């Protein structure tokens, strides 16, 4: 631990070499960074809270957005995120075990625990990528109104969500994506929804079992389902079909929800990714015996602080994005 040169000026406060906080320079700097990073994340989460309180009656319900588990079909709200949380806590545990083994100068245990930590981090980043892909590709599809609000569809008899494909009419027409080989070469349509707005509206008129669900949350804490007549009136203000989510359109509801999802989980995912990289570097250093030669494993402790911090942030993201 005592890599800093200690001089004989221990009694002289301004002479250097003394440690009033009993922590090394490197550890203190890591804490400085973590505190400032914590403030950045807090800024993001507080901004999320701001937008949510602003649209408190129309904000999407996370349980209805994140309902998928890889390799399983059906409605499993939150199970996968809970699994991801557990993976990250587990990798935090292997990290702290690595630090502990480092204190005891057990090189081989440090190598093993670092390895497990990296695997845990990689599983988490992979899960997050999957979650993003699922979120972006969308679920049931919806219709956006002229005011930018989202209208979703439910089945009247069961109350379940209805996908656009369940009821949209297939109207033959010239639904061709604009290609940059035709007309203005620098302008092309990258993506076409699977159904046109006209197909959705005609299909809706033809199937009496489908109702419109608005963004507004009622007193039971559920989204409001309109009657058949109200639905038809509401659909008159629709402007386009939305499938999936990006920074501009979001089939799950308020577009701010998607924006904050991408920013906050993306920023956190970037931290996990860089954490895995830093862990890898330290892992190789441990394996090469760098810290054994140095006589202490404080580097492992410092990178461990960063790794735990990533876990700590996820605990908050999990609560404010998925639970509350």
């Amino acid at each position: 631990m005592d890599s800093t040169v200690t001089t004989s000026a221990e009694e002289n406060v301004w002479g250097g070499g003394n440690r009033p906080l009993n922590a090394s320079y490197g550890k203190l700097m890591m804490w400085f960074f973590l505190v400032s990073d914590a403030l950045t994340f807090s800024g993001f989460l507080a901004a999320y809270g701001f937008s949510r309180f602003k649209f408190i009656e129309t904000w999407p319900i996370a349980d209805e957005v994140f309902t998928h588990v890889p390799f399983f079909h059906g409605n499993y709200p939150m199970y996968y995120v809970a699994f991801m949380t557990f993976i990250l806590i587990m990798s935090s545990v292997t990290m702290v075990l690595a630090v502990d083994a480092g204190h005891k100068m057990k090189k081989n245990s440090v190598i093993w625990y670092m390895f497990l930590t990296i695997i845990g981090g990689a599983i988490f980043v992979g899960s997050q990528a999957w979650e993003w892909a699922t979120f972006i590709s969308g679920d049931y599809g919806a219709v956006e109104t002229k005011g930018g609000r989202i209208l979703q569809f439910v089945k009247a008899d069961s109350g379940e969500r209805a996908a656009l494909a369940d009821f949209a009419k297939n109207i033959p027409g010239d639904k061709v994506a604009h290609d940059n080989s035709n007309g203005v070469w620098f302008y092309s349509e990258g993506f076409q929804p699977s159904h046109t707005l006209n197909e959705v509206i005609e299909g809706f008129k033809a199937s009496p079992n489908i109702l419109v669900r608005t963004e507004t949350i009622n007193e039971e804490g559920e989204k409001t389902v309109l009657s058949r007549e109200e639905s038809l009136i509401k659909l008159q203000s629709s402007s386009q079909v939305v499938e999936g989510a990006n920074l501009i359109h979001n089939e799950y509801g308020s577009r701010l929800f998607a924006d904050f999802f991408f920013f906050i989980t993306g920023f956190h995912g970037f931290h996990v990714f860089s954490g895995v990289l830093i862990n890898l570097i330290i892992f190789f250093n441990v394996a090469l015996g760098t810290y054994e030669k140095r006589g202490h494993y404080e580097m492992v402790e410092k990178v461990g602080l960063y790794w735990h911090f990533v876990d700590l942030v996820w605990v908050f993201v999990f609560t404010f994005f998925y639970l509350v």
Partner: protein
Amino acid sequence: MAHAHKLEIFRGLVKFKSNTQKIWGVLIFLTIVTGIEVALGISKPQFLAANTFLGMKLLNWVFIILTLVKAYYIAWDFMHLRDEKSALRRAIVWTPIFLVAYLIFILLFEADYIYNVFKDGFVTWNF
């Protein structure tokens, strides 16, 4: 340095024989808390979802408190704050808490004001 570990949690209610044991003990505790959170999030008990305190559902208060509990044990036992000098610990913990509490108060208050402006119909947005 953090060589001397304090080996008790819950204010001495649970004591561990070694640091490794304490780590596993904290893991079990964090897992239980996460399990409770997920169970509450899926079942949404009626009395917690229906009643509010300071304008927020009791359920959400439970989530936030459990989150702070988890954060405490991650910081104290995984990040070894329990073993650091109290001056360092306080500098690290109270700085963000003070700033974040202020930020949250001011942003949520403002957001609620804007919500009321929208609600009273000064701005048409839900069409």
